């Protein structure tokens, strides 16, 4: 416990001032039929025999709702790899949560989709690897994955469930962004996420193949801005720019332990997807403690709240309540210090730091699956 609220405007850390969480990301499994080389799961995947049970998840959803969580995103891996997905969705709705299903669409039949919708699935977010069939195969390492997703998107629309297309963008597909936007419209999506790969975990292993050029990045900014204008009222576009070409850090997770919590397949509770890379922290488990205790009292969730952990340059910065100091995992991965200023920040570091430490991609290199480190399709 520390008190430094007087000078900085940040209140001291106690249960009265820590905001209640609003969002739960339920990573119900790490198993997935696809093998995308930028998967947000940690490189050390949790196996099926360590996954928590249907009953455990029901308790997690109820505790989350009591704690103030309003929305749950049921994600993976591929959540449909769990046979009890319908029961999980029903349990989340019974807890009065808004239920988003984040899926690849692979492994869901029309009959199973009917069950999920009947159980109360409010919204479906479909991941899209590429609008080009070969490009989609190169990334997913599965034949006809694009074609199967297109069928799935049609089934979702036929059931009047709102559809968001989550297009993960990188050097190999960014030049097809206009076609990606077109496809989202054709599929009847009301929202499109143009999400550039975040270079952690699996993606960090594949940075050389996936990192877009600065020129691609700038063009993307322009295409998104134009599409937002011309499609206003028809398609909402959420945009995650290439972090490494930004001037300031992203507000990673909207701040550590501020808005969201993640429950991993084994019941481990994390402030962000990649937090397990922060090996100096030990993450509590829903099997041992209540979510409330974990959120308000655990050392892991309190580690990077407020500003007492920040280096002076961040603590005195007027952006600290905008980006909350940025990404801790990136600071550790690139600078070797999880408490350092985010390496992206141009105020704290020479602007070229992130790019210089990367292997800058060379356009025109032959890209084949041999150059890609796929995640296993466990």
């Amino acid at each position, binding site marked *: 416990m520390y008190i430094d609220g007087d000078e900085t405007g940040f209140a001291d850390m106690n249960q009265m001032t820590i905001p209640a969480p609003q969002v739960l990301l339920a990573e119900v499994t790490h198993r997935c039929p696809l093998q995308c080389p930028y998967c947000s799961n940690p490189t050390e995947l949790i196996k099926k025999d360590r996954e928590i049970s249907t009953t455990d998840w029901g308790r997690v959803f109820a505790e989350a709702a009591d704690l103030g969580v*309003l929305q749950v995103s049921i994600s993976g891996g591929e959540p449909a790899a769990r046979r009890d997905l319908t029961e999980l969705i029903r349990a989340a709705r019974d807890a009065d949560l*808004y239920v988003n299903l984040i899926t690849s669409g692979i492994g869901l039949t029309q009959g199973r989709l009917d069950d999920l919708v009947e159980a109360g699935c409010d*919204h479906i977010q479909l991941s899209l690897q590429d609008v080009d069939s070969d490009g989609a195969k190169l990334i997913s390492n599965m034949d006809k994955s694009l074609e199967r997703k297109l069928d799935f998107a049609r089934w979702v629309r036929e059931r009047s*469930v*709102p559809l968001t297309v989550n297009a993960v963008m990188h050097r190999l597909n960014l030049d097809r962004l206009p076609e990606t936007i077109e496809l989202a419209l054709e599929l009847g999506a009301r929202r499109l996420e143009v999400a550039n790969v975040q270079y952690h975990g699996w993606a960090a292993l594949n940075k050389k193949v996936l990192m877009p050029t600065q020129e691609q990045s700038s063009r993307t900014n322009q295409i998104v801005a134009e599409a937002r204008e011309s499609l*206003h009222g028809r398609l909402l576009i959420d945009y995650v720019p290439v972090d490494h070409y930004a001037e300031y850090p992203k507000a990673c997770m909207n701040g550590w332990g501020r808005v969201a919590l993640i429950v991993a397949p084994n019941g481990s509770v994390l402030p962000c997807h990649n937090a397990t890379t922060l090996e100096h922290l030990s993450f509590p488990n829903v099997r041992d403690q209540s979510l409330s205790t974990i959120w308000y009292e655990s050392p892991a969730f309190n580690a990077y709240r407020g500003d007492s952990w920040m280096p002076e340059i961040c603590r005195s910065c007027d952006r600290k309540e905008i980006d909350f100091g940025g990404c801790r995992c990136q600071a550790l991965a690139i600078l070797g210090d999880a408490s350092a200023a985010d390496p992206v920040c141009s105020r704290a570091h020479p602007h070229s730091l992130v790019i210089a430490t990367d292997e800058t991609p060379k356009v025109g290199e032959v890209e084949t699956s041999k150059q890609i480190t796929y995640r296993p399709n466990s």
Partner: protein
Amino acid sequence: MTVDLIPPSVTPQFDHGVRLKHDKVRERYVVLGPEILIELNQTGTAIMSEIDGQSTITDIISRLAARFEVNPNDITQDVIEFCTSMVMRQVLRI
């Protein structure tokens, strides 16, 4: 970006997958939808509570005016602007 205001003759309803919820932990109402989480203030809550898929904006304005004992003309612009912003954010459809 300029936005055309919706006319008061239209009948707004919640878009697919959007609902109003009482947030018991924070003692407020919120709008929940796909990637949508909007905290409502008292005015927003009053307007959204009147959305029933049957009433026009004009109907809603007169009910609110009666409920809060104000002149309908004084709240017309606010209600139309609020509903327009909710349409733009895909919370309401008309």
